């Protein structure tokens, strides 16, 4: 019903020429936001499923399908994070549709670049960075709610991987200690079954946190356009479309990131996989219910490192971890720069045309990145190949022409 009502609102505005431009931009912004949600899904499939795929608890394509469905369910489970994004980070009075569009351009660009290099960086920070950069460029520092940004985004970003690592290390230690009377083969068998459950919980948790971010941004756009009043909750059609976009993205699967997480950081056995996933799921679900928009990527990485620390003799590849941490530090500012640049460009050209030019450039960038990725393809066939130091496995024969 809400869907029909908002459609009729949109139609009634078509008579007013000023409104037509705005409505066109609104539609573009919503489509772009859903595009971001899609990249969010495939960037993050690895957080839930990388360890299960690495330990062969689940067949790769079954894993991504299961994860997609559970993301869909999770998106409906909690709306606390959507509220944080929509009204807790930037002043809704000073944000325009152009700002939201420019912010999305920043977020998507950074997400695609890190995916190309197989770095599990935070989609959330990319999005938030983009929106904040665009807001700064458009309205200045007073439009950003710095307190909300620090207390609900920056501090959780720093603390959550540490908490996840602590929980995962404790879990790993307990699991090996309790199960030491089992034969290696029986233990591995048992925890592979357990991993299916824990991986499902991570996917569910991912929906409660990550799908919410796009809902928040679309809600922000609707508030900026005057369609919704400030502090409004996400309408049902927003929740549904975001849930579908993220679960589709998850199903497509970000095989590059899955590979880095599952094979690159630590060689993982099934008890470690279960400990890592349980830790991630618990930390993400708890944080979601407090409205903290944390990065599921940071949590999953912290957990995986924790399982390496909790088991005697396990080796953590700190150089891979270091490369990730570097990407994390750069995520907010880089996405903010792209967002600010896009906002400046749109402003220079003028409202509707400016946004359209921004989005065309964005589409072109996305196309180039996709084309580049074809050269070193990672998919469900080679995702588990031996780690040789890079996201794309070395190929025995020359790659087929893309």
């Amino acid at each position, binding site marked *: 019903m809400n869907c029909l009502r908002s459609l009729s609102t949109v139609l009634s505005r078509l008579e007013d020429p000023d409104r037509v431009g705005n409505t066109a931009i609104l539609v573009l912004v919503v489509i772009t936001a859903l595009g971001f949600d899609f990249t969010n899904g495939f960037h993050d499939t690895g957080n839930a499923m990388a360890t299960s795929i690495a330990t062969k608890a689940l067949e790769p394509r079954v894993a991504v399908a299961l994860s997609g469905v559970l993301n869909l369910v999770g998106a409906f489970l909690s709306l606390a994070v959507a509220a944080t994004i929509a009204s807790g980070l930037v002043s809704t009075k000073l944000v325009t549709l152009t700002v939201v569009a420019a912010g999305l351009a920043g977020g998507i660009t950074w997400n695609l670049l890190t995916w190309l290099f197989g770095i599990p960086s935070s989609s959330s920070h990319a999005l938030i960075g983009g929106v904040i950069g665009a807001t700064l460029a458009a309205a200045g520092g007073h439009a950003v709610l710095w307190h909300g940004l620090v207390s609900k985004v920056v501090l959780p970003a720093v603390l959550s991987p540490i908490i996840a690592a602590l929980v995962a290390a404790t879990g790993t230690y*307990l699991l090996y200690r309790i199960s030491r009377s089992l034969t290696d083969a029986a*233990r591995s068998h048992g925890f592979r079954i357990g991993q299916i459950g824990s991986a499902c919980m991570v996917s569910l948790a991912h929906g409660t946190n990550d799908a919410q971010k796009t809902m928040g941004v679309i809600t922000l756009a609707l508030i900026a356009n005057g369609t919704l009043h400030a502090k409004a909750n996400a309408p049902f059609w927003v929740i549904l479309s975001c849930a579908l976009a993220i679960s589709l993205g998850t199903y497509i699967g970000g095989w590059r990131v899955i590979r880095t997480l599952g094979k690159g950081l630590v060689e993982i056995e099934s008890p470690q996989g279960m400990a890592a996933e349980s830790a991630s799921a618990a930390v993400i679900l708890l944080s979601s219910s407090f409205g903290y928009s944390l990065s599921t990527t940071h949590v999953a990485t912290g957990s995986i490192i924790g399982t390496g620390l909790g088991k005697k003799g396990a080796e953590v590849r700190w150089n891979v971890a270091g490369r990730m941490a570097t990407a994390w530090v750069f995520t907010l500012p880089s996405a903010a720069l792209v967002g600010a640049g896009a906002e400046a460009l749109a402003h220079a050209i003028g409202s509707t045309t400016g946004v359209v030019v921004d989005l065309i450039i964005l589409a072109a960038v996305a196309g180039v990145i996709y084309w580049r990725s074809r050269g070193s393809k990672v998919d469900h066939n080679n995702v588990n190949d031996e780690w040789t130091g890079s996201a794309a496995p070395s190929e025995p024969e020359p790659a087929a022409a893309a």
Partner: protein
Amino acid sequence: MSWINLTALWKIVVFGLIAGAGLPALFAFGLKALSMPGGARAQTAGGDSDQLIGGNPLGMVLAAICFLIILAAIGWGIYEVYQIGHPAPAK
């Protein structure tokens, strides 16, 4: 307004440890109980077998209790998250 919500922080750490490390540990206990030797199938498992079920009736019951507690805890957790994430409209 404080920059860091200490109440939320300790809750996330404590409940995180209980759910994120405690529940898998309970699962490990369940596996251990399940593999307790006994009953008719006692001698079938060799040194490198991946067989999980030892056949001990007490072990089976203990394992079932462990797994049921885990399922109940997960169900309760999801219900709580739903409750918190959908606040009733203020009256």
